């Protein structure tokens, strides 16, 4: 973009409603006044007139506020003027912008508007630095200016791949969070106790499942399964039609069916890139690529998915094309050969604890024996997975510290490979347990410098070799 380029955008008129929303509470003042009047004097005066006057005032306030808002791009800077009582004028170098995100909901489709979010690393976690609505064409033009030339390669991902990612990243808890307000609202709308109807349905289904799952568990299982399905559908609708465009050091990720979202950022704004696999993806031999970007906006964490689901070879190809500058130079360090048994310590201890508690409960609580057996089997399956992860860490965990950082380890239920440049590392934390003394090994935790402080831990690596690598990189700086 040339330095003399200049363009000014006005906010979409729908922003009048956005400005109106936070001040609607003032309409309650005449109601309170009327309530006090009714209680003291047993009569109400001028309620309607007061409401009309106040409404006119706040509408006027919202219109002036909308009129005063402007978004300018000039001399390589982004200038956002906003506010009426408290005016703000933000001047942001375009180079300092982390991401520009556009969202089109069905509401936006009706009014021909687009929500635009501008994020920098200075913003608060979970909140966009600047959010406004522009006309559809203005938003498209703005995104084009921020996104550079049209000469970009596009990669599309099929619905099946997106579905696998949605299935792998969905959780019952998310489903419950989505479902509870919906059920409550539906109940209010139709004048029925929706929750009672749902409980009846759960009871009916659980009767059929009672042969396989203990009665005390099956209702809970059904709730979790139903919540998981809802979370899956929610995630699928948000992620379907997933495509990534890249070139000129910029990336554009777009997704969504009903709510279409586009986000663009420079590859330079990426703090770290990780190739991840969660339990379901491990089962199907698929991987996903996530990037962590400073100031990613009002999404959970600061992660953007670049490749939702692909085979190992495909992931490596995408990685090399999108991030040609990220590669590992030095030989990675692997866990010390004679410390490998230590990876099994936690799973073995946990299994022993589970076995002991289960045996005690089985012996003492005779009426809950079926339930205890079921839960014990479930816990053992989880522990089997953790034994598998321990084997994975023995075979695969690695760390390499040079100008490029590379680390590979498991985190909770996921396996993870992290890549970033040495300058993006905020903190290196080395821990030596008493057991590390004999073999002179250590655990290392790398924290990436960003709002969300992404981190990875690699265990039982040789301390001296690690120190040498760290000194080689950071002594020169």
């Amino acid at each position, binding site marked *: 973009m040339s330095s003399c380029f200049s363009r000014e955008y006005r906010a979409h008129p729908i922003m009048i409603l956005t400005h109106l929303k936070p001040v609607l509470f003032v309409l309650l003042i005449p109601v309170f006044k009327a309530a006090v009047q009714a209680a003291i004097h047993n009569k109400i005066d001028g309620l309607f007139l007061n409401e009309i006057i106040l409404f006119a005032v706040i509408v006027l306030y919202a219109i002036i506020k909308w009129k005063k808002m402007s978004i300018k791009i000039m001399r390589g800077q982004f200038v956002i003027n906003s506010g009426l009582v408290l*005016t703000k004028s933000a001047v942001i170098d375009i180079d300092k912008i982390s991401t520009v995100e556009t969202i089109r909901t069905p509401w936006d489709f009706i009014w021909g508007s687009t929500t635009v979010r501008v994020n920098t690393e200075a913003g608060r976690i979970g909140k966009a630095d600047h959010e406004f609505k522009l006309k559809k064409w203005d938003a498209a033009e703005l995104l084009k200016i921020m996104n550079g030339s049209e000469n970009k390669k596009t990669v599309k991902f099929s619905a099946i791949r997106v579905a696998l990612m949605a299935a792998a990243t969905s959780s019952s808890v998310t489903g419950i969070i989505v479902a509870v307000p919906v059920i409550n609202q539906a109940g209010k709308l139709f004048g029925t106790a929706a929750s009672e109807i749902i409980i009846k349905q759960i009871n009916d289904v659980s009767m059929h499942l009672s042969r396989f799952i203990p009665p005390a568990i099956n209702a809970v299982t059904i709730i979790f399964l139903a919540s998981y399905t809802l979370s899956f559908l929610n995630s699928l609708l948000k992620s379907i039609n997933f495509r990534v465009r890249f070139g000129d050091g910029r990336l554009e990720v777009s997704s969504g069916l009903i709510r279409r979202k586009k986000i663009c950022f420079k590859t330079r704004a990426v703090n770290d890139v990780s190739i991840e696999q969660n339990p379901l993806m491990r089962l199907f031999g698929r991987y996903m690529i996530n990037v962590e970007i400073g100031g990613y906006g009002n999404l959970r964490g600061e992660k953007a998915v670049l490749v939702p689901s692909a085979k190992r070879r495909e992931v490596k190809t995408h990685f090399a094309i999108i991030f040609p500058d990220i590669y590992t130079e030095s030989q990675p360090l692997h866990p010390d050969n004679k410390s490998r048994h230590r990876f099994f310590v936690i799973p073995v201890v946990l299994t022993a604890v589970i076995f002991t508690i289960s045996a005690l409960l089985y012996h003492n609580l005779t009426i809950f024996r079926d339930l205890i057996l079921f839960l014990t089997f479930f816990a053992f399956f989880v522990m089997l997975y953790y034994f598998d992860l321990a084997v994975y860490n023995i075979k695969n965990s690695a760390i390499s510290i040079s100008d490029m950082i590379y680390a590979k380890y498991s985190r909770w239920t996921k396996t993870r490979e992290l890549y970033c440049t040495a300058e993006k590392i905020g903190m290196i934390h080395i821990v030596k347990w008493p057991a590390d003394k004999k073999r002179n090994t250590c655990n290392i935790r790398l924290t990436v410098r960003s709002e969300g402080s992404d981190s990875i831990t690699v265990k039982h690596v040789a301390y001296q070799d690690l120190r040498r690598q760290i000194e080689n990189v950071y002594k020169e700086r």
Partner: protein
Amino acid sequence: MKTYTPPKKIIWVWALRSVVILIVIIFITMWVWFLAPYFGLVAYIAVLLTLAFNVLYLPMYLKHYSITVSNSAIVIKSGVIIRHERIMPIPRMVYAERVQTLFARAFSVSALALKATRAITLTLELDNRDIDSILEDLH
């Protein structure tokens, strides 16, 4: 390297703000006076504190306040009893935002919000020309 200090008219901006706050406090105190007579004491204390703030503390605070902009950093010095010196390296700064309230606009002064990763510093109001000059230096 340029050093900026707040203009004298800032005192009037703060005096107006204090008066507005004072009116609100007195109004609330009068409203709840019937509950207990000693609520009136709150109004007297508020008046005394406002006077002390505007006549004694604010002029001294303004005297010790300065913003220095160099090629490498912005240094903000402030404080009367406890002195503060905040240094924000310019490469770490993400962007600056001009913030103006109604009273500040009437006196042609505005504050500056300096935003870096995980840190926001709001300066005291300076003359609009000084703010323009700082913004020009920063970008």
